[in-house]
């Protein structure tokens, strides 16, 4: 009965409108959190993969072979991610693994990718994914450490040194908290308050009141994504705290602005250029790819892009370039091709990987943005 099932699965996926390319499809396996607490990130990631695989197939696929996406939703549960990764590797026999929306899901898939020796490009932010470097594991999003460094550089430029940190008890938030605490000293910044809130909390006035009553706090740095930061920003306005408010790159999507409205005025955050594509100077090397992706995504889904969708775009493009260069069947060659990605201009920034850096982004990939009357603006 189970054997019949996997045949059914392949059949279901072929029905995705593949043109009549005779040759064997390149099988791209992906496990994303399209439901559960990280659905906020997983859904744009899946839509981007499906959109660009279909587009690539329309212009003849890669090396004359059509692309076939085999996707499972892990529902933001690392245990399910592990079991679906095994299914992709052992049963669906995929050629490459893209995915792992959250650091937890990614880390539960890493031992499988390493054992099966199959290239695996993660879309999650955790530094632990590429530190220490793992032979078969890569990632496209910036690390949380880079976000903290970018925020602290901006704070230094405004003479701020006493900062209150409010981090979310989610994977993203806690990994960010660890990195922020690690790098604060280097920038001469002391964390005078260190509070947390739950990803599903609907009210954080208690924590913010505690922060407001810490005497020498000069600015507040919130590390979270999805609904949490929006609740924090609204409560922040209600309590009229008035100190400069910084967020991490986790709020990089239009939804944050719609949820907070006027409360987002003056909020600063590090983010990929994707959010301010149209405001980039024409000379900016990223302008083309960023505006291109944004236009295609908007046409296809009538909704705005998010940086998370951008990570999926970069991962797919890096994978396809590697296939084009090194063929498909020899997984070790594909791995080497990914590791040698040089100067790939992605939505996240210029990617130059090396045997010791499986991400390839430097801090220029991040731009400091400020929200002015509900629009992202670049800080010079």
């Amino acid at each position, binding site marked *: 009965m*189970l*054997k019949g*099932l*996997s045949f*059914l*699965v392949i059949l*279901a*996926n072929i029905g995705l409108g593949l043109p009549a390319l005779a040759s064997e499809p390149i099988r791209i396996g992906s496990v994303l959190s*399209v*439901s559960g607490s990280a659905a906020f990130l997983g859904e744009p990631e899946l839509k981007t993969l499906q959109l660009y695989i279909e587009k690539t197939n329309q212009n003849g696929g890669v090396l004359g072979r059509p692309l076939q996406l085999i*996707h*499972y*939703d892990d529902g933001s*549960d*690392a*245990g*399910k991610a*592990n*079991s*679906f990764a*095994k*299914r992709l*590797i*052992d*049963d669906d026999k995929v050629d490459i693994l893209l995915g792992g929306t*959250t*650091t*937890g899901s990614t*880390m*539960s898939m890493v*031992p499988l990718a390493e054992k099966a020796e199959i290239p695996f490009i993660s879309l999650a932010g*955790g530094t*632990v994914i590429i530190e220490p470097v793992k032979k078969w594991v890569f990632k496209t999003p910036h690390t949380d450490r880079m976000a903290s460094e970018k925020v602290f550089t901006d704070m230094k430029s405004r003479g701020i040194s006493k900062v209150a940190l409010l981090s979310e*008890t*989610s*994977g993203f*938030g*806690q*990994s960010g*908290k*660890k990195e922020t605490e690690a790098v604060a000293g280097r920038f001469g910044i002391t964390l005078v308050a260190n509070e*947390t809130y739950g990803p599903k909390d609907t009210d954080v006035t208690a924590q913010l009141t505690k922060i407001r009553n810490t005497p020498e706090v000069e600015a507040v740095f919130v590390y979270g994504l999805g609904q949490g930061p929006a609740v924090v920003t609204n409560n922040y306005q209600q309590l009229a705290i008035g100190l400069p408010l910084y967020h991490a790159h986790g709020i990089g999507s239009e939804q944050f602005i719609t949820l907070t409205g006027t409360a987002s005025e003056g909020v600063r955050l590090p983010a990929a250029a994707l959010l301010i594509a149209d405001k980039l100077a024409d000379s900016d090397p990223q302008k083309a790819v960023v505006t291109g992706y944004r236009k295609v995504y908007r046409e296809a889904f009538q909704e705005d892009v998010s940086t998370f969708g951008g990570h999926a775009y970069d991962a797919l493009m890096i994978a396809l370039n590697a296939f084009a260069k090194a063929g498909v069947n020899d997984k070790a060659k594909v791995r080497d091709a990914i590791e040698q990605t040089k100067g790939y201009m992605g939505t996240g920034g210029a990617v130059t990987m090396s045997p010791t850096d499986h991400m390839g982004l430097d801090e220029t990939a991040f731009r400091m943005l400020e929200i002015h009357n509900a629009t992202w603006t670049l800080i010079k």
Partner: protein
Amino acid sequence: MNEVQKSPFLGLWFLGVTLILLLALLPNGYFLDIAIRMAINAIIIIMLNLLIGFAGQISLGHAAFFGIGAYSSAILPAHFGWPSALALVFGALFSGVLALILARLIFRFKGHYLAMVTLGLGIIVSVILTNETAWTGGPDGMAVQDLDLLGHKLPGDRSWLGLTGFLLILCVWGTINLMESPFGRALRALHGSETAAAAAGVDLARYKMAVFALSAVPTSIMGSLTAHYVGFVTPNLAGFTHSIEMLTMVVLGGMASIYGSVLGAVLLTALPQLLATLDGWETVALGAILVITMIFLPKGIVPTLTVYLGKHSR
């Protein structure tokens, strides 16, 4: 009760043969993975059924013991260099003692109060696992070293299925005997009427403590084995959703039915895999299946079938 008249060990042979067939025929790691998870869940659900089906107690936080087992096998070897077997035993003892203390404190509680207290245990354990980042790696979870049983490691997935399958058969054999013994009858009497059981000499507090510990320890051991098998643990192993999944497996399979527990575990482990390709409709399908089964098979699948077959076969 017709289940008992037919020799109960008939089902055991069936399980044994199925295990051997699976070991021989399952093509790759993925199907072995499903079978291993089914065996692990079946053991947990049989022991949970002792608590819910046989003894009539309720636990909405049973995944807490699974989480304690999983995390002791992750933390103790990683931070303290303990051998994995010792970590497993520690987790089991810790869960057992916790279950004894909890049962002693709340043995007067019944029905939804008991549900509430066990729910609280589950949430407290998963909140601790989420927030003690230094030890548990926080919400992103942490890696788990390989299981080494007296020096040598379990080679491949097939040996994992062999181990868990054997443990399942042992567990079924043991619980059938246990339920046919004075201890088992005292437990079921507890469910029938606590007052009458006490009047017959059953020490309610001691038996509730015993059945809580008896269901907590194996769950913790299975948590440890899963941690080593998957190689990674996250806090939602101890979470509310996992506890509800366990409860559903018990009730779906059949309360106070050992083979019902096995069936409930097998079905609800396979279901997410079968529904995985419905992208977006899985939750609806799972919910609908639960509702429909509970309406047409209110006593759970196996008891209802046994009654149905019993009526017709005579």
